[in-house]
Every structure is written in structure tokens, then in C-alpha cells.
């Protein structure tokens, strides 16, 4: 196993590389500050910071250690609550005490870690941003108000000042001066640069057939952590990132969802993207989950899949030196069945960036606003020319065995004017295209009803008068 830094020292795990980090921390290292609440990435009690070198700079993100195989943190800096403790409490910890943000205390270390990630990375330094860093931390007993106050106090005290420190190393230095991080953080970047850095895990090459390929693993390790323990793992490498050429956007399959959300050019094209992406899982999960993994997982209710379908993306598959392309709308064949062979891997997706006169809208209906799996989700891309629909893409999740591109509805709407009659007819076609089933997220009837309501909801921001007249 490749070594990593745990708090302030190098460790070289002897455990199998598929062992999840939480087990290594708690059982091998006897550091019990990180708690186990669910082993599914849903509670955040096991949150750790993971620092990685990116272009020579050390970047930290918060990760749920229960879904993170130790091979994925090779040559990284892993920080647990023990790694933040000093003789006296840090101001962040003290705010938690003063504002009584800890009741039973079981979830508290996870919150402290997530908010430390915020201190390291926050750009707006306001309460809304701070809250988004703890969207994956569940507390069953305080009622959260006190936690909100603690993070407000953090912003009031340090926010304005930290905003000026945008270079990671400088931010770290300032946080150390403010006693918000221990001193040893100052030499972690150097530590990770020597020994010479290698990509985490093993690079993916042809002879890796015996290895299990892992992208983010955020679903895989929920389902199969025990089985994967003894596996040799190979990690998808994000080598290309996002490239925009001739108005076409290429996204590496290993690009993670949080990076996608933060991408300035995409935000420019989809101004509400930030808001929508916050509805997808939680920040620590988005840091790990990848674009390619989401597609391969083929969840009928995958938020990102629905999003990508409405952008009409093309998937680029690779088998050795051969590549081929397939539209995403033809990629999902049946429940968890994909139009690809076992030898192929998803390398890229691409789509054309929209130009003027377009609307893009995403809706997700679930019990809990954040960190939930949708009952039904949907996305719409719409471009009009001279009052008629020039291009439209509609996708729905949760109404079929696959994330569904509504081919017939789209076909009908092409060229039509946006009128009540058109939409009513489109809804009739939509009804015939979907086949929802009853499950824990809702009855088939309800999902059917919702599918129709979502089309109105997509249109509401752009055609409020039409929608109000027809449905309200």
C-alpha cells in the first residue's frame, strides 16, 4: 500500500487497499473522533479532510471516510478531528461550545471537520456558503439552530478577513496564525511533494484487467464495501478536466460533480446551476462522485443523468485505442443495462454550449430538500426562434427503468408554438412515454401526476402567465 499522511505523520497501511478509510482510522489507528453513523455517506459523522496536491498546490476537501477506500488517499493528507486538536480549543471549537452547537456530541467532530473545509475553501464567506459545507452532516438532536449560530459567529469573526486569502497556501498560513489550524499544516504541502508524488491508486492501463475500476465509489462502496475490501482497485483519473473548444464542452468522465458545479464557464451558461447542484447528494459526496460514474451507475433517478440528458450530451467510449461515440439518450437500454461492452470505459462526455434564446430548467421533488433521492426529477432545455420551439430536450427520472429522454414528446414539440394547446397535447404524449412503478419514493400514480406537473414547473419561470392561467 502507498503511504499517506494521517494528521501529522506518514502512515503506510497494511490493510487491503479496498479497506474503507474509516475502518483504518478507527480500528488500526484507534482514532475514535471520527464516528460511524451509517456507513453509507448519509450522516457525515465520519467526515475527514483530504488534502491533495493539484498543480503543486495543496487543496483540501471534506470526505465521508466510510465510502473512501484507503487506496484513494495514497499520497494525500488525511485529517481527523484529532489532527485539529491542540492544548486549547480552536476558535471554531470554542464557538461550538459557546453557542451550544453540540448536544449529545456524536455528530460534532464531523461538523467541525466540514466547517474546517469551509475555512480552507470558502470564497463568499457568508452563512449560505457555510451552510452548504454542512449539508452532508446529520444531527439528530440539537435542532441545528445552535450550529447555524456557531457558523455565523465564525463568519462574523473571520469571514471578511479570509476572503482576501484566495491562494491555498496563503489561506492555510493565515488560518494557522488565527489558531484555526495547527502549525503542522504549514509543511504538509512540502511533505506531500517529497516523496515524489504519484497519482493516487494505480494508473489505469490496459493490463489492469484484474483490477476493479472505481470512479468516485460513492454508490459502489455503499453497496459493496465488504466485497471490495480485498479487491485490487484502479481509479479513473481526471486527466483532461473540462475543455471548451469551438463552443463545445468536453468533460472528463472522472471530473467530479462539485468541480462541475463550481466551473465558472458552465455557471455562466446555466446561472442557476449552483442552486440546482446543491440538490444533488451532499458536498462531500459531490467531491467524490464523478460524471462518468453517474452515467455508468445508470440509476433511473440519477440527478446528473437527467441533467446531462437534457443537454443532449454525447458519450465517448474507449476500448484500448479504439473510441466510439453514442448519444446519452441511446446509452441507457434497460434497468442498469448500458449500450457498451465490458471492455469499454466511459472517457468523456461532450455537448454544445447553448447560445441565445434558450432556457434550461431542473426540478427535483423529494421528501427532503437536500441530500435526498428524488421521487421524480426532470430537466428541460428549450430554445425558441420566432415564437416557436426551435430545439427542446426533456428528461425525467423516476418514471422508467432508466433515466428517460422523452423522445416522442420532444419530437412532437419541435417546431410548435408554446401555447396551452401544445403543452396539453405534449402532456398526453408524455403520459404514454413513461412507466413509473410504486416504491418507497411514491406510488406510480403520484409519479405520473408529478411528471406532468414538472413540465409546467419547467415552463413557469419563462411563461408565468401561461402556466398561471392553465394550472393555478
Amino acid at each position, binding site marked *: 500500500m502507498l503511504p499517506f499522511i494521517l494528521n501529522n505523520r506518514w502512515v503506510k497501511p497494511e490493510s487491503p487497499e479496498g479497506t474503507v478509510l474509516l*475502518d483504518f482510522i478507527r*480500528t488500526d489507528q*484507534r482514532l*475514535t*473522533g471520527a*464516528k*460511524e*453513523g*451509517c456507513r*453509507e455517506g*448519509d*450522516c457525515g*459523522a465520519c467526515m475527514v479532510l483530504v488534502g491533495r496536491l493539484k498543480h503543486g498546490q495543496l487543496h483540501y476537501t471534506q470526505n465521508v471516510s466510510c465510502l473512501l477506500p484507503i487506496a484513494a488517499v495514497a499520497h494525500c493528507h488525511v485529517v481527523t*478531528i*484529532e489532527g485539529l*486538536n491542540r492544548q486549547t*480549543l480552536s476558535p471554531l*471549537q470554542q464557538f*461550538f*461550545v*459557546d453557542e*451550544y452547537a*453540540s*448536544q*449529545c*456530541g*456524536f*455528530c*460534532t*467532530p464531523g461538523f*467541525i471537520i466540514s466547517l474546517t473545509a469551509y475555512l480552507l475553501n470558502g470564497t463568499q464567506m457568508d452563512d449560505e456558503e457555510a451552510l452548504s459545507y*454542512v449539508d452532508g*452532516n*446529520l444531527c*439528530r*438532536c*440539537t*435542532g*441545528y*439552530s*445552535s450550529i*447555524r449560530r456557531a457558523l455565523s459567529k465564525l463568519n462574523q469573526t473571520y469571514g471578511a478577513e479570509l476572503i482576501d486569502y484566495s491562494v491555498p497556501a496563503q489561506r492555510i498560513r493565515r488560518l494557522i496564525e488565527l489558531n484555526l489550524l495547527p502549525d503542522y499544516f504549514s509543511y504538509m504541502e512540502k511533505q506531500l511533494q517529497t516523496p515524489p508524488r504519484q497519482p493516487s491508486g494505480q494508473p489505469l492501463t490496459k493490463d489492469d484487467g484484474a483490477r476493479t475500476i472505481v470512479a468516485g465509489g460513492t454508490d459502489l462502496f455503499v453497496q459493496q464495501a465488504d466485497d471490495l475490501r480485498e479487491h485490487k482497485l484502479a481509479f479513473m483519473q481526471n486527466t483532461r478536466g473540462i475543455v471548451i473548444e469551438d463552443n463545445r464542452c468536453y468533460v472528463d468522465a472522472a471530473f467530479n460533480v462539485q468541480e462541475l458545479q463550481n466551473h465558472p464557464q458552465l455557471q455562466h451558461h446555466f446561472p442557476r446551476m449552483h442552486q440546482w447542484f446543491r440538490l444533488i447528494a451532499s458536498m462531500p459526496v459531490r467531491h467524490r462522485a464523478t460524471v462518468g460514474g453517474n452515467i455508468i451507475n445508470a440509476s433511473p433517478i440519477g440527478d446528473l443523468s437527467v441533467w446531462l440528458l437534457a443537454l443532449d450530451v454525447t458519450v465517448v467510449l474507449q476500448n484500448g485505442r479504439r473510441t466510439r461515440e453514442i448519444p446519452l439518450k441511446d446509452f441507457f437500454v434497460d434497468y442498469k443495462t448500458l449500450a457498451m461492452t465490458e471492455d469499454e470505459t466511459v472517457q468523456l462526455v461532450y455537448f454544445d454550449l447553448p447560445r441565445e434564446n434558450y432556457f434550461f430548467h431542473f426540478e427535483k*421533488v423529494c*421528501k*427532503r*430538500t*437536500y441530500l435526498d*433521492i428524488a*421521487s421524480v426529477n426532470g430537466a428541460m432545455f428549450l430554445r425558441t426562434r420566432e415564437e416557436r420551439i426551435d430545439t427542446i430536450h426533456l428528461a425525467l427520472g423516476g418514471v422508467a427503468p432508466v433515466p428517460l429522454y422523452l423522445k416522442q414528446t420532444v419530437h412532437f414539440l419541435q417546431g410548435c408554438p408554446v401555447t396551452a394547446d401544445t403543452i396539453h397535447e405534449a402532456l398526453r404524449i408524455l403520459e404514454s412515454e413513461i412507466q413509473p412503478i410504486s416504491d*418507497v419514493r*411514491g406510488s406510480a400514480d*403520484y409519479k405520473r*401526476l*408529478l411528471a406532468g*406537473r*414538472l413540465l*409546467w*414547473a419547467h415552463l*413557469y419561470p419563462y411563461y408565468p402567465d401561461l402556466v398561471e392561467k392553465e*394550472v393555478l
Partner: protein
Amino acid sequence: MASDKIIKSRFFFEDEVEEKLAEVPTEEPDSWQADEKLAKVGKPYSRIDGYDKVSGTARYAFDMHLPNMAQAKTLRCPLAHARIKGIDTRKAEKLSGVLAVLTHRNTPEIKWYGTSFLFDTHLRYEGDEVACVIAETESIAEQAIKLINVDYEELDHVVDAKEAMQDSAPKLYDSGNIRNGEPGTYSRGEVEKGFAQADTVIEDTYRTQIAIHNPTEVHCSVVNWDGDRLTVWDSTQGIFRVRDGVANSLNIPLNSVRVIKKYMGGGFGSKLEAGKYTVMAALAAKQIGRPVRITLDRKEMNLAVGNRPDSVQTLKGGVKKDGTLTALFHHSYGAIGAHPSNAQCSWPLKSMYKCDNVKVEEYSVYINAGRARPFRAPGHVQGFFALESLLDDLAEKINMDPLEFRLKNYADKDQVYNIPYTSKVLREAYQKGADAIGWQNRSEKPGSGRGPVKRGIGMSSQIWWGGGGPPAYATLKLNRDGTLRVIAGTQDIGTGTYTFMAQVAAEALELPMEKVEVILGDTAVAPYCGASGGSTTAPSVSPAVRNAAENMKAKLISGAAAHLEVPESQLTYQKGMVNHKTNTDKSIAIDQLVREMGEQVMVSIGKRGANPEGYMINTFGAQFADVQVDTETGKIRVNKIVAAHDIGRVLNVKTLENQMHGGVIQGLSFALMEERVIDRYTGKVVTFNMHDYKMPTIMDMPDIEMFIVSGGDPKISSTGVKGVGEPAMIPTPAAIANAVYNAIGVRIKQLPMTPDKVLNALYR
């Protein structure tokens, strides 16, 4: 304050009367008066265990690690109803690293749930214990579990209370599926006559779901034998209950079992007794001669360690045009799971409002599912949802403001026992809450708001007991440097018991908080206190601490008298000093005095006094909700909750707010999200993880405004404290439901009010 006596003490623990012989003092210090100015009690001290919690050094049972410790995991029945025909553990035993496999064949027959056993061959629910594997690691134990081959005879199952009540339903017990074979009943007055007097009668049926406690720390124990003496570190709300349960099961003396709990990650009622897992670990640890740690995983938590029973409540209410309630009728049934428990939920209807004619009939029904346990205000959360929904509908029928309607039927004395309350400050709660939510701006015509997102305001009342009572004892130890240790056999389940115990002791002895340390949660060193449930901990144990402190004062005066050679009557105690009333030279600081006693530690004991005879002790409150409902998607958003409560004296506003807001969010969660779902065809739970069993995150939080309208209640005890944990949650779902009705004009009669129910109610 020398002499003590033993009385028969009765008070409500959870929703049942607990009766125990208890030693009480014959004399107590004067109660702190309602508005008494106190120096420490009521002040916003931060938790004294704050450091441990924010630094992660707080060690929970889950974190305990002993040298040479083995790990245990449980094999649970994968079927809803089955009988074990055969079990083959040979493969599992041969797996390298496996130390023992316990089943019904190699363990003593230990009684459980009255008629069942630790390992029963008749398995009554998915999750029933079949075997326990002990191995070097958790991972090996998990692997070994998969190697156990069980030959199950699958039996017909029933997972719905209504179906289970039919004669044709599969039987969990020979005596049938209705617990005790008959409903629980209650009546006062003549309900039919009452309905006849009414101008308006409404009958409706309301449903609430099964909810799971899901504390963040799973149920777990670490056990270790030293010869015949057993130490158990357990995540529990009741150390003495665990001690007794384990000792009885293993048939060993009580003084051989020591139960320790320092910190725990929540319980909410699910950790009030000894679990099978603890006894299995103890049996295994004895067998292999090593310490054993046993933990449940999240799935087991959702199957096997308790839930709030569901309810189908048919309520009928009669009212006169002037708003007088003439009669109330409650019929309900609820599923208690596979073993004895209780699904009653009529207390709100019986006790909240003045009504002379009341009749109740309620069934607790066995089904093939995990057993119900008390869950934060058992019965009341369900009962209030139905009662307050009905009340709002009645008010609408007679064109009366809902709040005015409640005031019209305000109960001035306990309705069930016909005795006065020690105190009731509910009118003030109504007033404060109504002002804060903007009740006067509430739309009188439900559903009349414009646009797709509609706003509404609603409210609910609340009653609960939470007076506590004896027995509860505390010991104080005063060191020669003037530092004090408070020791009691209660436990801090996260609620702040450590902190308020220190405040009460520091108050009474006029010491700085830094001088006080608190030891709780250890049966071997601490005097008895009850389990932490029913919102009884603070009202039961705070007077014991105060009384112990007063006894310590008396001792210090006696000691000073001996040392200074003056009569006790000339001395008074003040701020860590014993002073002579007239001669200032004859004063002595307590650390100096205790130093005179050499290395001795001065000890005093305090006991919770008896509750006043002929009074009912209740907490009261009202909550108001402001919600918005998106009629396109059916999503409900709670904007604000105002919680105004009568809980006697406030001990600490910081820990109080945690309890209050924590209760409100659990109420909100019950109203909108949480639901255990069982597939009726397989009888299996489908919501067994946090993906599918939803609880709120920080993003779901409404604004919460809190008012405490009460002062201390000197009739109850020397501290005048009532409980708060449960009252906080009780009215929230009902207030939200009434606000939703006010917003959309359609009543959702079933919880949780998920978008599908809202949308279906609006459009189908």
C-alpha cells in the same frame, strides 16, 4: 434534616404510572420560589463537557476498546415470520478468526419479552435474533454470519395492524394478535348524551406512521468479565435497568454487574432497557474469556430496536355553537410489533381540554415487525395530530377562531383524576405564541392565498407529565481544597444533565462552577436514579442534588462548630464560608475546614422529596407554525415555529434551547419526512437505511422562536423544575398540519405529509 422515610411513590414515566417504594426526606429546604433570583441556576452556562464533545475526546460506548477485545455481530432472521427447523454453524466456526457462535442450541434458555427467549426458534419478525458470531474483527464476524446455514420454515406473516386484527390473520401468539385480547378503555360522563347536546358533530379518521428513533450512535455494548464480575459499557438511557436486566438474564448477583455510560449519541426512548445484544455479548465474553464489543449497524437499528407505533385514530367530537365541547370519542388501533408494547394514544383527548363526556377504546396489535418502544412522548405526538386536526375542523364549522375555541375549553383541573394541577401557565403560552407568529394576520379562509405557493398559519396545544418524583439520590463529596464532586446514578443522554447538576450544587453551596465536577452513569459508584425517560430526569434529580447540598451545608456548620468551639446555632453558611453571626474572627473557609479533617472527604447525601399529594403535575405548551405549500410540486416548507411552554423552572437556557429546538425538528421530521415502510407481500422493511429513512438536515430548519412562560413550581420540589424533552416535540406535527390546512384548504389526514399526499389531496 436527619430522618428519612419510605413512601410509595407514583408518577408518570413515559405514558404509564410508575409505582416504586422510595426513600424520601421528611424535611426539605424551602422550595425556590417561582421568581426567585438565583445566581447559577437558570444562567446560560456552556456545557461542562463541551471540550470533550468538540474535540472528539468524548468516549462513547461505541468507541470503547479494551485489550484483547473480540467483536460480535448478530445474525437476524431475514423473513417476517418463520420457525427454525435446523441450523448449521460448522462452516462459520471453521472460518479463521471466528471465536464462538451462539445460537439457541448452545445457550441457556433465557426468558425475554415474557413468553419468548433470547434465542427463540419461533421468529416473529425480520430482524429477530438467530445467532451471534464472535470473531477477531467485525469483518470476520460479518463473513461468518453469511456462512451460517439456517433451515427456516417460512410462516404466513401479517404486517398491518388492521389485517392482524382479522380472525383470519396469521397469529403471532396463540392468544391472538390483539394485546391482552381486548382494547384499553376509558370513559367519563355519558358520551352519547354529550353528542346529543352538541350543535355540531364531526367524525374523522387520522393516520400516523411508524417512526424509528435512529439515534446517531447505534446500540452497542462492550463487556468484560473479571472472574465472575461483569462490567458493561453500554449506550443506554438507564444504567440501573441494564444492570438489573443483565443480572436477571444471566442469573448472577446484582453486585456482580457494573454498568457504565459516560457519553451517548442519542436514544430518544429506544435505549431504556437491557438489550439482547448486551446479554449475547456477555455470554460470549464469558465463553471465550475475552472482552467483547457488540454493535448494531444502521439496518439493524431500523429493524430491531424500537419504533413509534403507528395509529389509525377515529375521533368524534361534539360542540355547541358557543364553542363548548360536549363530547369526545376516540377509537384507535396501532401496531406494536412482534412483542409486548403499547400503542395507546388517547391521553391528549382525555386530558387536554375540559370535556365532561369522553369515551376511549384503543387496541395494541401484534404484527410481524420490530417491537415498538417509547419514543419521545409516546402516544402524545400521534394523539395531538388527530385531536388538534379535529378541533380546528370543529372550530371552522362553528365559525370560531381556533385559538378562541381552545381557550373556551381550557381545563382548570386535571380531567382524568379530577384534581388540581400544581401549576398551569398555558394562557400566557397561547398569548406569547399568537403574538410572535402574527396570529391576527392569519387568513381566515383556508386556501385563499394567490399564486402557486400558498402560505398558512396553524397551532396546537400540548400537555405532558414530566414532573418526575422519588426515588432519586445524589451524593456530594467535598475535597479539602474546596472542590466538589457530585455523584448520581442518572445519566446524561446528551441533554445536559452534567451541566445542570453542577449548577444546582454550585447554587446551593454558593461555589464557583469551576469547583464542581459531576460523575454520572456508573452503577458501581453512584446512588440510584431512574432511567432518563419521560422528561423526568431534571425534575427528579435536581432536587436530590439541592437537598444533598443543603445537607452538606449543615455538616459544614457542624464541623465549623466543632473546630471553632462555638454552638452551631451561632453559625451560618455563605459563599464557601462558615461565618459566625456576630464574631467575624470566628469564620472559616470551607477548604480550610475540610483540610482540618486531614485527607478525609466530606460526604453528604440528598434525596428527592415526595410529590405533593392530591395534585397532578403537568407541563403545558402551545406551538404555532407558519408554512408554505408549493401546489405545483406538493412540497411543504416550514418557515417558522413558535414554541411557548410551561416547563416550571429553567435550569439552563442553553441546554434548554437544545432540547426545545431538537424536539421541534423531530416533530417537523415526523410531520413531513420520517416513515418506516414495510412491503406487505414480503413483510420486509424497505426503509432500512438513511437513504430511504429521511431525517432533516440543517437545510430543512425553520426559524424557531422559543418562550418559556413559567417560573419555578414550588409545589413540586425544592427546585420547582418540570421536564422539557418530550413537551418540545408533542405539538409540532399538529401545528404544522393545521397550518397546511390553513394554506391550501384541504386537510391532510395522514402523516407524514409528503409531496405525494399533498398533491393527491389537491388534484385527485
